[in-house]
Structures are given as C-alpha cells and as structure tokens.
C-alpha cells in the first residue's frame, strides 16, 4: 500500500464514531497492509472499528471500564494473531470472535453488576419528560439485556445491533447456524416479553 494511500485511510475522525472502512475491498487492503507490518494500516483499523467494538463490549459487560479493557485487549490480540489471519475469512467476524471471547472472559471475572451505562446522544435537558422517558427506556433495555443468558445476549447483539449475517455469526461464535437462530429467537422473545411488561407497568 502506498504511503499516500495509507495516510488517506488513516485520516478519519479519530475521536468519534468513525465508520468502518466502506468497502470489503478497502478493508482487505488495510488488513493485508497491517499483516505486512504497516502500522498505519493497523492504526486505521483501530480507528475504524474502535467505536463498534466498544458498543458491543458495553452491551455485553454493562461497565465502561471493563468494556474499554476488553476492547484494548482485543486489538492487542488481533495484532498478535494477524500473521495467522487468512483472507478467506472476513475480517469483521474474525474481529468479533476475538472481541466476544474477551467479553466472555471479562464477564466471567465480573458477573452481574448493577451499574448501567448510558450512551448515545440523549440531550441533557433536566425536567424534560421525553428526555427522562428516553433514559428510562434505555435503562430498561440495558437491564433486560443484562438479564439474558450470555450466549443469547451475544447472538442478539451480533444479529440486531451489529448486523452480522448468520454465516458471520457462526464464524464469530463457533456455534452452528440453527443454534444461533434459536438463541436470537429466545433473546427476542425474552426481551419483548420483559419490555412489554415494563412498558405497561410504566404507563399504569
């Protein structure tokens, strides 16, 4: 990869939610360059995927410090494992496999916390009823999500938040497609039931 090209690729917004590099071709150029030791290409991958990885880890672990640690650990392991990465695998599910493993390990260390994280762009307006409702709704979702078994939570997030295909999820989790569909269905049923009940209780 030329130096100019890598500079262009690295020139993304480094502080906020930079999107993943657009095309699969662009991603594979970055990954190949990183495999060959191009540190700028690796930095560009971190830049592009950090926010998404953090989102997944936050939903899995419900704790910002643990999530940031899991993401950092993930990228170090990705760097270490890059020589073994084969291009016939898609990078994203491969990355999510490592991330999901780190989250499982972190989750096993620190089971169930009562702290829930807030994120997204909810405007800070005190006494704003819609704002309070939005916060309450997010907290309910966070609680409902945290109440799911880890495997179901992971499958639900991969499918409905990260938009991975079932094939990619199979790579990321090592589980079969029918098992994954069942986990997603159970997660959906449980979330729907719990949140509908909560919603009803709030209205009453």
């Amino acid at each position, binding site marked *: 990869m030329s130096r100019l090209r890598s500079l262009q690729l690295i020139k993304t917004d480094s502080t906020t939610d930079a999107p993943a590099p657009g095309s699969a071709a662009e991603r594979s150029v970055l990954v190949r360059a990183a495999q060959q030791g191009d540190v700028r290409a690796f*930095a560009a991958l971190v830049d592009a995927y*950090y926010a998404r990885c953090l989102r997944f880890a936050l939903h899995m672990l419900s704790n910002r410090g643990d999530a*940031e640690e899991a993401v*950092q650990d993930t990228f170090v392991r990705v760097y270490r494992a890059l020589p073994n990465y084969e291009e016939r695998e898609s990078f994203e599910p491969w990355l999510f496999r490592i991330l999901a493993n780190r989250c499982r390990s972190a989750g096993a260390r620190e089971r169930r916390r009562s702290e829930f994280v807030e994120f997204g762009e909810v405007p800070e307006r005190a006494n704003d009823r819609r704002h309070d409702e939005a916060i309450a709704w997010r907290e309910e979702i966070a609680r409902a999500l945290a109440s799911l078994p880890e495997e179901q939570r992971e499958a639900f997030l991969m499918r409905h938040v990260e938009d991975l295909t079932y094939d990619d999820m199979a790579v990321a989790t090592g589980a079969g497609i029918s098992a994954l569909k069942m986990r997603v269905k159970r997660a959906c049923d449980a979330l729907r039931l719990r949140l509908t009940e909560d919603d009803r209780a709030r209205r009453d």
Partner: protein
Amino acid sequence: MHDETDETLARIAEALRPLPDVDPAEKARVLVAVATERERIRQHRVRVARRWKVSGAVGAVAAAGLVAAVWLSASRGEAPATQMASSTTAPASAPAPAAVDARLARDAKGLKAVQVVLRAPSAQRVSVVGDFNGWDSEADAMTRDPVSGLWSHTLTLRPGRHVYAFVVDDSMWMRDPRSPEAADEDFGRPGSVLLVGQP
C-alpha cells in the same frame, strides 16, 4: 412466533445502535498497548535469533572439534568413540559463552546517562516512551520541577540510535520538538531520534 422485525424489537435495536462516545485517551492507550506488543514481539525475535546465533557458533565449534577428533583418531589408528564424546562437550562450554559475556560486559560498560526534558507546565503526568522501554508509558515517568514547569528524567541507554516520544497525561503522544523527527513513525505517531555516542 413473532416476526423478528416487529415494533418492540425495532425500538430495542434503535436504542442499542447509537455508537458510544469514544474517549480519545482510551483509544490512544490501545495504540500504545499495541506498540508495546509490537516491541515485545520484536525483542522476542531478536532473543531467539541471538540464541540461534550462539547455539550455531557452539555447534560449529563442536563440529570442528568432532572433525579434529575423528581426524586425530584416524591418523593414530584409534577407535574415535571416546574422543568424539569429549570433543562434543568440552568446546561447547568454552569459547561461545565467554564471547557473549564479554559482549554483555562491554555493553554494560558503555551505558550512558541521558537526561530528557520537556516543558509542559499544565501537565499532570508525563512519561518518556521509546524502543529502550518497550514503549511502556509506565516504565519511565518524568519528574516535574514546580518552579520552571519542566519535566525531566534520566535514562540509562546503550550507545546507538534510539527513537522516543513523550506521553502527556496518559493521552497525548508527542515527539520531542528539540530533537530530529524519526522517519519510522510508530503507529502513525511521531517520534524523535536520540543518538547516544560510543564510549
């Protein structure tokens, strides 16, 4: 069975999809951690290569001894078995490790104290990172002079070329403005070159 795309699920997914705010300092720490890992891998490779070099030299000496022993025994018309055994062990412990020790002693003798200084009056914490400490921001914390606002630290370095930078408040990575910029930036981050003279 409900359709996976029903309204409640759509609202749940919508609430979960916004990307979180990213702390730039945390992202910077990821790159520092990866740079540290990169250096660890590099040093491991150097150690392995050195080990091979030393064992190769030992092997060559042993092989030479073996050939000499076989040649001697052949010229004397003796059976070579016992001499072969002694020749493979005796030279192995003599010249090569001595050479390594001598080199290490020379290295230790050639270490130089180098003071690095950075003016950053409002910083809370500054450390110097470089190839000499595996880019570890915990390894060489600098000390602040309360009057001048200068941060300083003395490094003990081997002679040669070193690349280094400063990490300010665990988040900002900066090169030393008073030293030449390194061409081989690490992870797209600027570094400076430090040349430590030969003894």
